């Protein structure tokens, strides 16, 4: 059977500086990141003939086409999976370039999530949240921290997961951010700092929660054959998958609220890529909250359900550990670009361009997205 394995490559990456405070619009940030990614791919804007725009964002493909002066645009799509959208867009773009529908697909994402419409306020406008908006918001559940905290609490009650294990995730992302010039939070954090941070929605403290920030990121996905003749080292997309949890409209109605859509997507992606967990040199895991990383490590299959807390201990997910995770600092300490910054970082790692935070001999890596109320996406990549 034909699969998407190695049919496409990420050929260009771009990021703006990340800030907390900007006078630039989301469109401006999107354009800046896109120009960087397109130039990195050795292309010009008019070479882009497909766009997968961020479904939850303010910028649509038409905004870019107008600015690009495009004359021969062929493919436009969105992947409405919240924070899982960016990684799901890689699968969508691969489907387009591997079938000849398009040649070079841009996946852009820019947001003024700190200075403009604050990220936590966007939920009310997202149609996939209408069930929680109708039944749960009126009693006081109004933000992701409040929707996800009961998942974390149940995990703690069932499996003995601790706040100190959450702190280990936060502390590790921060340590990685200190090695990244384009990370917002670069002051080292201790477990004690985490434990002293104020409670937001128990068990989530302030330092369990990701940042709101301004900035843009973009990647170019091209057919694997085209990528042979492009300037940057070829980073192939070898395994991809998207999965929805049961009861995707409401966490509360889910048979097992500690299991995410990623648990369904991950086995498909590993099978497609033909790799095992031991082959993964570096992981960029969507970290809207510390607990989300622990849960995804389980749903990815790096450990059994309930063992994610102990898994993150002992430096295992830090640089130098067995599974260096979120080497850029993640949403927790780099910036919140809805996980497209995780995609950029994985490509950069596989190119060997990460400097002080480079994982030695990184050949195979994975990136995940986690969105809305548990949608999951995954892409496994390897360098040629």
């Amino acid at each position, binding site marked *: 059977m034909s699969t998407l394995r190695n049919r496409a490559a990420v050929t260009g990456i771009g990021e703006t500086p990340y800030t907390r405070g900007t006078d630039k619009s989301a469109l401006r940030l999107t354009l800046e990141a896109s120009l960087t990614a397109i130039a990195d791919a050795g292309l010009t804007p008019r070479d882009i003939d497909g766009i997968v725009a961020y479904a939850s964002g303010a910028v649509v493909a038409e905004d870019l086409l107008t600015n690009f002066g495009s004359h021969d645009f062929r493919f436009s799509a969105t992947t409405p999976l919240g924070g899982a959208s960016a990684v799901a867009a890689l699968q969508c773009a691969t489907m387009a370039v591997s079938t000849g529908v398009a040649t070079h697909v841009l996946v852009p994402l820019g947001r003024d999530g700190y200075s403009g419409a604050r990220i936590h306020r966007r939920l009310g406008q997202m149609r996939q949240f209408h069930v929680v908006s109708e039944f749960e918001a009126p*009693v*006081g*559940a109004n933000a992701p921290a409040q929707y996800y905290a*009961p*998942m974390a609490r149940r995990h703690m009650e*069932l499996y003995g997961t601790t706040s100190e294990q959450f702190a280990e995730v936060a502390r590790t992302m921060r340590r990685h951010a200190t090695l990244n010039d384009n990370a917002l939070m670069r002051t080292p954090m201790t477990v004690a700092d985490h434990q002293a941070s104020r409670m937001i929605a128990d068990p989530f403290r302030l330092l369990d929660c990701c940042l709101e920030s301004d900035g843009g990121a973009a990647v170019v996905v091209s057919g694997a054959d085209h990528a042979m003749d492009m300037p940057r080292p070829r980073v192939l997309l070898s395994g991809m998958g998207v999965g929805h949890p049961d009861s995707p409209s409401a966490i509360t109605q889910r048979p097992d*609220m500690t299991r995410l859509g990623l648990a369904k997507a991950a086995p498909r992606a590993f099978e497609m890529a033909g790799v095992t967990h031991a082959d993964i040199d570096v992981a960029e895991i969507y970290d809207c909250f510390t607990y989300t990383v622990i849960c995804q490590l389980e749903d990815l299959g790096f450990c059994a359900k309930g063992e994610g807390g102990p898994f993150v201990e002992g430096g295992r997910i830090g640089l130098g550990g067995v599974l260096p995770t979120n080497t850029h600092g993640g949403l927790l300490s780099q910036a919140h670009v809805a996980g497209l910054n995780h995609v950029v970082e994985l490509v950069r790692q596989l190119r060997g361009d990460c400097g002080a935070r480079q994982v030695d001999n990184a050949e195979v890596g994975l990136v995940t997205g986690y969105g809305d109320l548990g949608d999951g996406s995954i892409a496994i990549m390897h360098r040629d």
Partner: protein
Amino acid sequence: MCDTCFSLENEWFTASGLGRVHSWTVCHHAFHRGFASLAPYVLLTVDLAEGVRMVAPMVVPDACRLAIGLPVILDYQDRHDDITVPRFRIHGEDDADG
């Protein structure tokens, strides 16, 4: 629609109000100004006896007493003339805070 047999038939009935705690959170930070004066408040996720789950605040916010499976019963509070909100209290206890 029924997600097992795909029937579109449905009927209203009165639920018992009985349930058991499935999980919870304590909201220290109010993300909507309408809840600022209530913080910290406990939001319970409850397995209703009838088989669905429901989210509602705890009448007396005391997270220390919570555990998965704790029996609770639904209560209502008239917050304004035209707004009545559901709340849960621990089953078998008579909370006196109104």
